[in-house]
């Protein structure tokens, strides 16, 4: 079990990367939320495993926090939001999906080549995960850039946060608990506010297309 642990963590890392990639190629909002939920679950599994192997009970707390927030609460809230706003289907992307995926591959190559020399020097258990975490963050950025609707952008933001937490957990073996709590609270409040925003945007423009926000300027 202990011997296989680094490989298992790499496996979860790959799973998280694959889910990030699946997210940028996904058109439907409902599937996007489901993919995000699975990504959260993979993150929880990786944290628990790392906590068990390195004997850090802190990581269990962090995993529990992720579980409650990212696997249960936020997906539930997002499902509620899209049901209320009736935006279960979303086909709008600014660049078409195949191009987005090609850009995604370029980002993955970029972040891997950036992280490869670093991971060779690294002594921590899953040094190779740094490249994957970086790729996840960049892919989530890409998703936020290429989607024109508000809900996928929020999911992109949350997925980016997943990548950051994963990087912090695997590379440094966990952040101080107070930072962890702070980030969790930030994300929670952020999502709540963004949820309210989505309702407001919708009420104002009858659509969630954020292009409408450009007309808010005062002349």
């Amino acid at each position, binding site marked *: 079990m202990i011997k296989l642990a680094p*490989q*298992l963590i*790499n*496996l979860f890392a790959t799973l998280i*990367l*694959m889910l990030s990639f699946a997210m940028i190629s996904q058109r439907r909002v409902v599937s996007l939320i489901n993919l995000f939920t699975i990504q959260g679950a993979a993150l929880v599994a990786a944290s628990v495993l790392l906590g068990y192997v390195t004997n850090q009970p802190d990581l269990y707390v962090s995993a529990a926090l992720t579980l409650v927030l990212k696997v249960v609460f936020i997906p539930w809230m997002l499902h509620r939001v899209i049901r209320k706003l009736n935006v279960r289907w979303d086909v709008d992307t600014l660049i078409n999906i195949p191009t987005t995926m090609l850009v995604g591959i370029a980002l993955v190559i970029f972040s891997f080549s950036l992280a490869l020399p670093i991971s060779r020097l690294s002594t921590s258990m899953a040094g190779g995960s740094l490249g994957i975490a970086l790729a996840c963050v960049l892919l989530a950025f890409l998703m936020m850039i290429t989607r024109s609707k508000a809900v996928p952008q929020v999911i992109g933001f949350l997925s980016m946060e997943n990548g950051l937490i994963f990087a912090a957990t695997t590379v440094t073996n966990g952040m101080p608990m107070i930072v962890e709590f702070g980030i969790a609270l930030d994300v929670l409040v952020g999502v709540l506010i963004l949820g309210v925003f989505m309702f407001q945007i919708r009420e104002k423009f009858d659509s969630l297309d954020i292009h409408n926000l450009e007309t808010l300027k005062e002349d």
Partner: protein
Amino acid sequence: MSWLGLLSQLMAIVMALVMAPLLSGWVNQWRARLQNKSAPGLLQPYRVLHKLFNKESVLAEHASALFRMVPYIVFGCMLLASAIIPTLSTDLPLSPAADAIALVGLFALARVFISLAAMDVGTAFGSLGARREMLVGFLAEPALLMVLFCASMISRSTSLTTIVETLAHRELAIYPSLLVAGVAFAMVSLAENARVPVDNPDTHLELTMIHEAMILEYSGRHLALLEWAASLKLFAYSCIGLALFFPWGVAEANAPLALLLALPVLIIKLAIGGVFLALIETLSAKMRIFRVPEFLGTAFLLAVIGLLVNILLGVG
């Protein structure tokens, strides 16, 4: 070359021929069950083959010699393909004949000939099916190659037997790249075997059909051979998948006991795989033909990610 090697080669070929229709029957049965229909018998594909072999083969008036040759060529390609895939044992005398790249080439050869035959008679459906098949094929092939390269990067060889030997008989290690490659492979094999998200294997009466449109003009023993070749292809793909991603139970050279054990293990693995295939086909809806390039592009890029992960994590 040992007698045992010859025996295992012979067993692999006979088993592919016998079990391929059985696998198709099994998948069809489970699909019918999952869709709340009354299921056809497990032996239905054999009955269909028997019926077709006993029927007269009707040829179109303008059919050339190519049209008559193609069923034999396609059947031969699929038979050779299933002979070089290590299903029961990695001790296959025929395996130096073709490595993973040549295997993809064999599938391509069969595809080219079946498309030529479809266009040969000159019906609208035939050329329509041939064009779609080529559209699917030219995207599926590189993805399949990338998946196979993922596995060969781990074993540092493109020979299928060496790959499976390395994966099956080394101490247990988890290869994250194979996870990604496995997903890509599942997508490619759905497309290549004319399964539901890409094509519907059930119907001859749909404007969106691909595989069925190409063999519409065939009848009698020619059709029987093509149907058999199609189930051999499904069998071959399932066996590649099982050999790469679940390689346990494949016998090594000079291990007669393991060879005996390999058969029931393979049957169990195929049975589980068949149920999964039926499940995927039931749960997904057929996609628009213009979404297929996107679907296969995703498979290709996932396989590329597998290669990259392999380089980054450097396991093996």
